[in-house]
């Protein structure tokens, strides 16, 4: 069974702007997939369909075989964990501990199990000692890791990350990669950071103007110069994909 299945997904915003034009997508359990493409390609719109925050257009989304529809929303949101781009949007509770507890508590977890889940998630991202700090006193990199802990505490099946490496300093970027590397989860990562995609994801999907324009092994996609140019994908200056191992 697929971890994530998207069939014929189309969506227009209420103002008439059509963002998605019939997407088909299949992600297997344990796969790590990078979602690449220029700004305005519809990547975030797709992400918001995966847990039913957006919907109402044509097509179907299934998470572990369960259709994303109103009666299933609670379970879908447990299974699909979205980490948003700005951790300040995601960390809204007064303390790190309360924030990480928010998701599982909404799912009905309480008492000792809740405490255990919170600490486990914080330990996974190396932030356990900050449990009682207010989020706004943390550095940006720390906040992003806590944001990941907030969704890990919900025991998800798929981790969806929106621009995980944006605004991080090089050390923070590397630390986050180590955290992500250590997670045993299906992963979908929206990113402009192609070296990051090569390092962490064996498969890449390219989106442009609301459709999928390429889907295959990350290295193959990044080696296709014509495809790269057509979709406004570029490496940072001096980066040569052949010089790094990448994930297979």
């Amino acid at each position, binding site marked *: 069974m697929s971890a994530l299945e998207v069939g014929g997904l189309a969506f227009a915003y209420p103002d008439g702007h059509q963002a998605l034009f019939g997407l088909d997508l299949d992600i297997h359990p344990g796969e790590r997939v990078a979602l690449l493409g220029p700004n305005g390609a519809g990547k975030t719109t797709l992400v918001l369909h995966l847990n039913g*925050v957006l919907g109402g257009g044509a097509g179907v989304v299934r998470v572990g075989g369960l259709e994303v529809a109103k009666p299933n929303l609670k379970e879908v949101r447990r299974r699909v964990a979205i980490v*948003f781009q*700005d951790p*300040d949007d995601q960390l809204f509770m007064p303390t790190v501990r309360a924030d990480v507890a928010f998701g599982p508590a909404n799912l009905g977890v309480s*008492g000792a199990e809740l405490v255990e889940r919170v600490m486990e998630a914080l330990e996974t991202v190396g932030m356990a000692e900050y449990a009682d700090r*207010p989020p706004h006193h943390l550095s940006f990199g720390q906040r992003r890791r806590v944001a990941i802990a907030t969704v890990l505490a919900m025991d998800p099946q798929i981790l969806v990350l929106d621009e995980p490496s944006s605004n991080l300093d090089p050390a923070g970027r590397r630390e986050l990669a180590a955290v992500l590397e250590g997670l045993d989860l299906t992963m979908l990562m929206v990113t402009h950071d192609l070296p990051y995609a090569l390092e962490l994801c064996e498969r890449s999907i390219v989106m442009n103007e609301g459709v999928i324009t390429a889907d295959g092994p990350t290295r193959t996609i990044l080696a296709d110069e014509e495809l790269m140019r057509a979709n406004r994908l570029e490496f940072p200056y001096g980066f040569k994909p052949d010089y790094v191992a990448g994930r297979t």
Partner: protein
Amino acid sequence: MLAPECKVAGAVAFVLVVVATPREALWAYGIYAGLVVLLATMARVGVRTLVRRLVIETPFLLFVVGLPFLAGGERVDVAGVGLSIEGLWAAWNILVKATVGAATMVLLASTTPITTILEGLQRLKLPPVMVAIAGFMVRYFDVIVSEMRRMKIGRESRGYDARWWWRAKALSASAGTLFIRSYERGERVHLAMLSRAYTGSMPEFSPRAGSLSQWAAAATLPATALAVCVWAWL
């Protein structure tokens, strides 16, 4: 360490008793002030800190200054100025009650982290929505202030000089932009909440309620004050 709900309840009860004390019982207010100072000493909050934080009540007190001049009734001559006796009593009443109340709250705030106070309010069964709003305010105050600072830097980097009143237009535009940005952030936060299975009510975390002895300890202050208050009425 007292549980926050005990502290909050104790402080609020104390303030209520102070407010209920007749204004003519000057000695009672002496005792109340003594209690606050005693408490501050026990909590190791310096008198200087206490006084500095009391500055917050100044705007409220400005209005009090006018009362002895404006109120009617019998007047008394003080240094050649006729002051209303009723106005003097009214000013004293507001001044002393506001100061004791504010000092109590300053003590509460200086000895309890704001997040803990919020926890206490939740356990005191304050409506969860109100606690959540207060929590969001605390959480996003810094975010919004730093956004405001960035906008200020942005204005000044482009030669904006706030000294002249006719330039206020840029300032009001900034305020509008700040409002819209904060509103949009609110929408994004809501989205993030929905994504973590939020369905309209904030989860309640397992209450680690204050013990009976903590409640008893917290009750000492309002109980003592109540005795003073009853005595003053008799």
